[in-house]
Each structure stands twice: as C-alpha cells, then as structure tokens.
C-alpha cells in the first residue's frame, strides 16, 4: 500500500475510534445550541414587558399586530381609529416600558415612509428590531397570500423597498439568519481549533515518544507530515458531516411536524390599502405567528442550504490546512522537555479573534470589520462562514470567491513553509523552540 495512504489511514483510524470523537460529535451541536440559546434566555429572563400603543393610519396592521404579535415581551395595543398621535401621548403617560408606534398610511407600501416610535428612554436595539420584524412579518404574511403564496423571494424584493427594513434577498427570516450565522461560525471555530491542535499534539507525540526516527527510516518527513494532516483533516470532515447530517435530519423532522399547507388555511379576509391608497380585500391565513415564522424559516433554509453546503467545505478545508500547517511547524520545532505554550498562542489568537468578530456578524453583517476579516485568509474561514447567511449572492458572490482564492494561496505558502521546517526540526532534540530556530531550520532545508 502507498505509504502516504498508510499514514493517513493510521491517523484517521486511531482518532475515529476514540471515545472523545463520538462524544464530541454529540456534544458539539449541543454546545453550539447552548451558546446561542443562553444569551437569549438571559436576556429574556431580565426582560420587562413593553407596551406598544399603535396609532395606525394604515388601518390594516394595528389590529393584527395586537392579535398576532403580542408576546410576553411586547404587548401591542391598537388605538381607536380616530386617535391621533397627540391624543395618545396625552392619554398615556410615557414611561420606559410604554411607547407609542405611529404607522403612517403609506408605511410598508412606498419607500421612505417609516413608522415612528416614541419613547422617553431608548428602548434598545433589540426592541426596535423586534417591532420592525413584527411589522415586516405581517406585511409579508399579507402579501404572500395575496400575491403568490410562498413565492418568498419576489415578495421580499418588493417589501425590501417599501418596508424600510433592509433585509435582502435570500428570504430567510432575519432571526434564523442570525442563528445560522452564529452556529456556522461557532462550528467552524470549534473544528478548526480542535483539529488544528490535534495536529500539534500528534506531531509532538511522535517527537517526544521518539517513534519518529523509526518512522522516518521508512517514509520521507514531508510525506509523514502530510499523512498526519490529511488523516486528521478527514476526521474533522467526518465529524462535520455527522453534525450537518444531524442538523438536516432535525430540520426535516421539524418540517414534517409543522407540515402546514398554506393555501388551505387562507380564510381570513382583511382590508388593506394598496399603493394608490384604495382599500382592497386581502386574504390572511389563520396561522399563528410562530407557525408562520417556522414556515418562513424552512422555506428560507431550503434555498440557502445548498449554497451553504457548497461553500463551507472549502472554507473548512482551507482553514484547517492553514492552521494545521502552523501547528505542525510549532509541533515539529518544539522540544518535548520545554513548554511551547507561548508559541502556540500567536496561532490561536487569530482563531479566537475570528470567533469574536463572527459573533458580531449577526448584529452587524455589513460592518467594515466583518467585510475585511471575511476576506483576510487568517480570519476568513470563520468570519466568512458567519457572513454566508447575509451574503447577497447576486452582487457579493465575488467576495466569497476572493476569500477562498486568497485562503488557498496562503495555504500553499504556509504548507510549503511548514514542510521545510518540519523536515529538519523534527529530529532536533537539543535545541529549544524559538522563532530564530524555526527560521534557521527553514533556511537549512533550503540549502
């Protein structure tokens, strides 16, 4: 058998049989879900119910919002049709937890006609976003059933122009996008970091238990290094496939449980105003707001998932190879008797930093920081993954491609460097790990 294959097989087999692999495959999704849910739970547990008084000039939204969108966090109360913004403000004493929402009659229909929210204190971006989302969802709900049932993309394009809310294109519910972004980023972070460190440990193990000399009498050092990296990378891919498959299975289960047939449920007729200001009849489904959310999420995910699954492997393999080559360099150059921690830190810092930036992506996907770090090779594997749900595929596809090209360019350089250092350093025992020595060994193998 080909020697490289032998090494890959050993690295793969010994790791995949470990209990830790199975445990990690189960625990990783739980950790990710926990990390996403915990802040939300904390936020919710400290949340005071807000009351939003709606002065509704659209005639359409107020009632439905009061009926469908009131939750234990936000309670909508629709004011009588003759109420004006001044009279409401007079009648109710404004407090931190009560606010007034004024929707003028063109809200959601023509551009630049935003609703106004009045509050003594600032209600916080979360509340404003929730109110925006609620309005957005209602409009969408109305329009979906009025025009083309579930032809979401078309509607979203139209709504994007009129609803003053800049969610573009893919049709995923904004909240689902955020979760996908965070979950993707976290998954990538955990995989790149944990499998990168496994390369480090694997190389250090061979060096410290001195089997290296026996193996090197049979196989070239560079082949051994590649065998190790590929073997461990395959374990990472296997785990990735397990997690994604689990997610897709879960997704299908939810979908089958929800099993909503939208057209059959349309029986609620409402009046709504069209762009010309005339009242028209519209059909409204009797689905609950949560059911609608799930429906949208499923539809959105269906259109997003193929792109996600196509791009993610490139980002994972590139990111893993990049960091694995750094870790292999340090592993081969480290001395079993001395501590290599301080040399590992500079490698782990960009990974951790990527995760920190990725976490901000769900709040602010279009920031300059997110933009550049999603293209910069050291951070792109994680940040781009977190950004993927927000990418507008018709105009921003080139950014994804550029990030991938730059990433693989860097991989080419870093693996070449790693192979050169590894070749010499792996048999050096007397000398301590230092940047000077790494450079010395790199130059020596260039001779």
């Amino acid at each position, binding site marked *: *058998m080909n*020697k490289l294959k*032998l*090494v890959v097989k*050993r690295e793969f087999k*010994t790791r995949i049989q470990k209990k830790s692999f199975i445990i990690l495959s189960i625990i990783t999704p739980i950790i990710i879900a926990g990390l996403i849910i915990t802040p939300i739970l904390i936020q919710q547990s400290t949340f005071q119910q807000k009351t939003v008084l709606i002065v509704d000039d659209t005639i359409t939204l107020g009632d439905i919002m009061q009926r469908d969108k009131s939750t234990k966090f936000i309670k909508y109360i629709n004011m009588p049709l003759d109420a004006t913004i001044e009279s409401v403000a007079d009648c109710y004493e404004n407090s931190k937890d009560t606010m007034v929402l004024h929707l003028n009659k063109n809200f959601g229909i023509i551009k630049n006609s935003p609703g106004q929210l009045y509050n003594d204190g600032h209600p916080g971006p979360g509340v404003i976003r929730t109110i925006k989302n609620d309005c957005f969802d209602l409009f969408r709900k109305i329009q979906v059933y009025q025009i083309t049932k579930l032809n979401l993309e078309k509607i979203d394009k139209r709504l994007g122009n009129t609803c003053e809310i800049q969610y573009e294109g893919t049709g995923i519910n904004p909240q689902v996008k955020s979760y996908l972004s965070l979950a993707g980023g976290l998954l990538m972070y955990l995989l790149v970091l944990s499998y990168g460190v496994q390369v480090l440990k694997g190389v250090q*193990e061979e060096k410290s*238990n*001195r*089997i290296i*000399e*026996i*193996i*090197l*009498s*049979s*196989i070239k*050092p560079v082949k051994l290094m590649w065998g190790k990296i590929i073997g461990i990378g395959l374990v990472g891919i296997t785990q990735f496939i397990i997690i994604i498959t689990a997610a897709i299975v879960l997704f299908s289960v939810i979908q089958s449980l929800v099993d909503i047939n939208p057209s059959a449920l349309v029986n609620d007729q409402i009046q709504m105003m069209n762009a010309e200001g005339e009242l028209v009849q519209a059909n409204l489904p009797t689905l609950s707001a949560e059911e609608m959310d799930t429906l949208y999420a499923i539809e959105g995910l269906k259109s997003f998932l193929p792109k996600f699954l196509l791009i993610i492997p490139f980002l994972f393999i590139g990111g893993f190879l990049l960091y694995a080559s750094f870790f292999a360099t340090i592993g081969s150059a480290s001395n079993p008797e001395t501590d290599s921690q301080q040399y590992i830190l500079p490698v782990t810092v960009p990974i951790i930093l990527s995760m920190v930036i990725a976490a901000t992506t769900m709040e602010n996907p279009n920031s300059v920081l997110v933009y550049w770090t999603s293209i910069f090779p050291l951070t792109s594997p994680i940040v781009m993954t977190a950004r993927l749900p927000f990418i507008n595929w018709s105009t921003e596809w080139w950014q994804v491609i550029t990030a991938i090209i730059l990433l693989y360019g860097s991989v080419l350089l870093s693996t070449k460097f790693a192979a050169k250092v590894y070749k010499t350093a792996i*048999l050096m*025992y007397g000398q301590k790990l230092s940047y000077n020595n790494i450079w*010395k060994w790199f130059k*020596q193998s260039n*001779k």
Partner: protein
Amino acid sequence: MKYIIKANKVVKRYYKHTALNKVCVKIPKGSIYGLLGPNGAGKTTLIRLINQISKPDEGEILFFNKKLTKEHISKIGYLPEERGLYKKMKIGEQAMYLAQLKGMSKTEAKEKLTEWFDKFDMLDWWDSKVEDLSKGMAQKIQFIVTVVHEPELLILDEPFSGFDPINTELIKQEILELKKKGTTIIFSTHNMQSVEEICDHITLINQSEILIDGPVDAIKKQFSENAYEIHFTGNMISFTNALWTGFELLKKEEVSKNEFKVTVSPVGNNSINELLGAALKDCKIKSVFESSAKMHDIFIKAVAKANEPKTTKNIKNE
C-alpha cells in the same frame, strides 16, 4: 571482499556545525560492524545518512555499489538508540503499521509478525496497548519491527539498553542467528564488552572524523602492549625481586591477603619463562596469559590521543 555499504568522503553539516567531515567507511557484507565513538562524534548522523533520513552535503553512500535510492529503504532495518512506540495504539496494529511502512504486504506482515511474536512469547499481547507493556517488552517489540522485513542490512543503535541480562542474551543470540543467515549488522554502542564479543570490524569516529577502522583482531594487535597478566599467591616483595630478570611492573592489584594480579612487560627481548622461573621459588603461580588490548582501553587511548594536540593548543590560546 564484497561491501554492502561504502561511504565516500561524506560530509554533513548542520547550520554552522560539521557533523561528518570527509568520512570514508566500507562495511563488508555479512559482518557485524561496530560503530564506536564518544557522544556527539557523528555516529547517529552517519546512521541517518545510511537510512536516508537525511542527505549528505558532499560525497556519496553506495549500497552494493549503487547510489542509495528509496528502493533500498525496505532492505535496511533500523533500531535507533532513542526509540519509542505509540503508547495508545494496540501492539499488533502498530507492528503491522511499521512493517507495512517498510514495504511488506498486509498478509506477509501478519504472517511474519505472528512468527516473531510467538518466538518472543508475546502473542498474547497482540491486542494490548504499548502503555501496558514493561520497558523490556516494548524493547522486544521494537526489535521485532526492526527485523521483521528481513533486511539485508540491520542497524542497531545501543540494542541492549533497557534489557535485563536474560533478554540481552536472547537478543544477542538473535543477532548472531541473523548474521549466520547472511545479514550485515551495523552495531553502534558504548558497551565495549559486547563489541569484543560480537563485532568483526569496527570504526571509531571522533569529532566528525574517523580515527580507527578495521578488523577487530588487527586493531587489538596494533594496540597490544606486549604484556602479561600473572595471578599468584605469595609475597609481593619476593615477586618484585624476580623482576630483575628484565621486566617492569605495569599494574598491581591485591586480590586478597598474599594474593595478587599483576601486569608486567618485558624490557627488551626477555622471555617470560625467566621471570616465572625466578618467581616460582617463593610464589605459587595460579595463571599466566598474554594480555591483549581491551576495546575499552583502545577507545579511551585513541580518543584521548586524538584530542590531545587540540587541548594543548586551546590551553596555549587561553
């Protein structure tokens, strides 16, 4: 004579340090070839070059007169001084892996390994992990994976370290057995007694250069001092009196009261018979034999001599 390895003016440098300087070695086929030298002399470097773990900067190494290529990897077995195994991996699996890396097929590896494991009484341990083994047992596994692919050239670096006397004997017998079958063995060690016991040829490397090279017998002869070791009981003064026959006393060791071991050397062409005749009057001679140079002494003498001029020069410089 047929040589399995010929190193011609081999130079190997590490950064600013020269590990081997124009080294020439010829290793006869079928011999046990001792590779000796102080720590840091360049032995391991030479071994790594033969194993193709690293490449020479100058010169060449030939395997049966052909330049070393990767085809030769399967013809060489190497047991390094610092050797280890994967602690968490099953022994059998690990041995299979290492054997296949040496180019054996899966079935062939399984068959030969089973034979060797059985021979060393280790078959029951096939599915255990290395961390469950004693040091001696791990050493046996390492020996097995070094020889399992039946290499033509076996390189053993301190093969007896970590073995108890019984296992040392077992391994020694295996080495001699392999030699009988025609395997050439390069044997690197600091244990001079084992060199005397099993080596046919030696090379002594010191400070990157070859100091002594040749068959063991010839080297011993070259370093012998024309001396005799005498073991006797009796009075030391009387024995000393007998030395007037033309001998000088080189070494004296009191074994017990009135029992001595001495080393004497004739001055000029005097016969040992004259000394014995004179000594017999008052002493009882227990044994006499011609003292040949010990490998241990040759090593120390040669290295000290080689380092001498340098040391003086250094002192002068200071």
